[in-house]
């Protein structure tokens, strides 16, 4: 796999949607090419930051209580 093929397969790889036949060749190119490896790491960490940012949000407890009261048929 060359650099442009690696770029094309970067997102499917990160999303675990890469075709199994291409996975080994993709990883092998990353091991040899510092630029592609750097690109991969950038996206890997960007995703990690996104996860941290958006998983930090919690539904406020008052909303949760009100919601479950309504589900149970009680007044909000």
């Amino acid at each position, binding site marked *: 796999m060359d650099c442009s093929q690696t770029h094309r397969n970067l*997102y499917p790889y990160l999303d675990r949607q890469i075709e199994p036949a291409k996975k080994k060749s993709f990883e092998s190119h990353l091991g040899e090419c510092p630029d592609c490896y750097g690109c991969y790491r950038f996206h890997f960490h960007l995703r990690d930051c*996104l996860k941290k940012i958006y*998983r930090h949000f919690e*539904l*406020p407890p008052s*909303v949760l209580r009100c919601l*479950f009261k309504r*589900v*149970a048929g009680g007044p909000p």
Partner: protein
Amino acid sequence: MGKNDKSAGVKNQKADQFQALVAEHLDALYGFALSLTRNKAKAEDLVQESVLKAFRFFHQFERGTHIKAWLFKILKNTFLTDWRRDKRHPESLSMDDEESNFSFYVEAFRQSKASPQDYLPPESLHEQDMEQFFGDEIMKAMESLPMEFREVIFMCDVQGFAYADIAKILNIPIGTVRSRLARGRGMLQKHLWQYAQDRGILKRSA
């Protein structure tokens, strides 16, 4: 036991079952609602409206299937109904194709005519660096994306949904999920690239 007592018992049982199944997904739903509305009060209302709707249609949910995806679909549809009712749509879907081809690293290389390692060395680009460099800017970049791109990135990158699940939730082909992800991520990178240049994290080309 009277007829009314029995009916109340069945209702309570249904509510308990429902709560047990949805409780663990409420924060994820709230995050999704926030990413769509970009407003806390609206996101709270959207979650409540969607969960109550899910409860009303709980009898239609097939046990053993992906409840999180089912809840996300209900929330998205509820959001869309409200969104269509509101005539003020600032967001447009028209996108420049060059966005999809933007690569942070390729651009760094092209502009600097040097190794990208001179700018953001892969070896030292740790998680802490990303957070330190970009901080709130990642969230701003996400919020600046049109909804179609923001939602697929949220579902894929934050919630870890497979392409097939996202396609079902949004009722679009898998190919569209892929292309929206690529375009959205390209835009995200471009935003961060500009920010990094403005802050001197990446040197401007001479």
